[in-house]
């Protein structure tokens, strides 16, 4: 995705086209139902059309920016941090161990865990679809759920999930154990969580993996799986995304439960 071969203008043009193709079916469905079934005018049509133009232009520019900056840096860092030479840090014995494919000490990957946690957290905060849902949640709850509170809870969920997923790839433990245990925990939590938060919490699971997070996580997973001895990129490279969908739900439910607990304690003390 480097711009040496393609000029910025060409990149923007390609991005506009693909974003427009994204929005086209939505427009067709809306126009069809509006014209045939509802047969009513949409108020403030001009404002809405202008807004739609902003959505397409904004998203297209955003994606070119990601491809120019975030994806190349994220991929390069993931590769450098999981490189055997970096991990061995000048220790020949450890390096030989890596290259001959013996089992590695998971604690050598300390920087990879920290990178996974911070990159999961920070890419989630920049995820446009999550911003949209957080704005709606604030409006609907009349401020009880703050935009940043919800997004930080989700970001912690993704960060924790990704770090655990990285640990799983490094240790080679089976994915289904984590998923099964995670969903079991989630089910129990769902029974005890405040009822009003449940739909929003489950929605955030689908929202976290949209524009930024997936490409960066996929690069991290595949980088790890191809560098850790005994892992295959196809079998182990995925799975980070499954974790990034599961743990935000747990985190948002926990956020609401802690909020409710604090509220109850406050009421009692009064």
């Amino acid at each position, binding site marked *: 995705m*480097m711009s040496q071969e393609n000029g910025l203008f060409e990149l923007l043009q390609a991005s506009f086209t693909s974003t427009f193709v994204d929005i086209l079916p939505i427009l067709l469905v809306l126009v069809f139902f509006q014209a045939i079934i509802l047969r009513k005018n949409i108020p403030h049509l001009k404002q809405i059309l202008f807004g739609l133009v902003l959505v397409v232009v904004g998203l297209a520019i955003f994606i070119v*920016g990601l491809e120019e*900056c975030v994806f190349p840096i994220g991929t*390069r860092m993931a590769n450098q941090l999981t490189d055997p030479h970096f991990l061995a840090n000048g220790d020949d014995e450890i390096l030989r161990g890596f290259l001959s494919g013996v089992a590695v000490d998971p604690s050598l990957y300390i920087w990879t865990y920290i990178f996974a946690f911070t*990159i999961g957290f920070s890419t989630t905060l920049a995820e446009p679809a999550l911003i949209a*849902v957080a704005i709606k949640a604030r409006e609907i709850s009349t401020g009880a759920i703050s935009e940043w509170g919800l997004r930080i809870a989700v970001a912690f969920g993704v960060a924790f999930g990704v770090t655990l997923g990285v640990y799983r790839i490094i240790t080679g433990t089976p994915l289904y154990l984590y998923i099964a245990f995670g969903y079991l925990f989630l089910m129990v939590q769902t029974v005890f969580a405040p009822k009003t938060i449940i739909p929003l919490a489950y929605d955030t699971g689908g929202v976290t993996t949209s524009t930024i997070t997936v490409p960066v996580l996929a690069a991290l997973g595949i980088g790890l799986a191809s560098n850790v001895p005994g892992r295959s990129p196809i079998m182990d490279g995925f799975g980070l*995304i499954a974790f990034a969908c599961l743990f935000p739900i747990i985190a948002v439910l926990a956020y609401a439960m802690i909020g409710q607990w604090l509220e109850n304690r406050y009421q009692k003390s009064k």
Partner: protein
Amino acid sequence: MGTLKALFNRFLSVILDILPLLCVFFIFQTFVIQKPFPHLEQTLLGIGLVILGLFLFIIGLENALFPLGERIANQFAQKGNVFWLLLFGFTLGFSTTIAEPALTIIATKAGQLAADSGFIQTHDSAISFFVHGLRLTIAVAVGMAIAIGVLRIIKGWPLIWFILAGYGLIILATFFAPKQIIGIAYDSGGITTSTITVPLVAALGIGLAVSIKGRNPMVDGFGLIALASLTPILFVMIYGMFVLGIA
């Protein structure tokens, strides 16, 4: 459009959205990798584009996607015809998914993988049949999810029933689905909710819950996206059982 002050605040908050990511990059590059940034100019340009793009997108969101979803929901609620509303929900989910580029890429990869490992025949028509079948299955799954989710909002059924039943069925299907489809199935749940679809669908659900008497927007309005990330997993496994046989 809102006042200039509101716009300025929005711009500041977009910078805050991106700032943590920039800090992570900067700290790792300087202290851990200990090398200067290659292509610094390109990187700075990219950061500028990310901030500008996200800013324009959010302004457009609040001026177009949100009001559009809410007004359509409101007009359907006034019309009171459940059939058309469900058809609208299905068409919206189906059409946005079938055109989703991420889905096309994953489906093509899955087809290649299935052919290479000998689960379907390797000639082009067999692969293309498998790939198109997969895309159609996921699009139908998302369409059904939105339609069922809209019906749930109209009736006021608790989302938790659908979640429990849905994941129960997914766990059950995992035992019977052919092994090579399971990874594709679980991955397909996350890719179906694109950045443009999410705000529109969220506004649609909340708009419905606001327009229908006795519905709570918080409890009933959310949940459409949750269902849309659940049904593809189930449907793809069922598709796998039909095409590749039961495990």
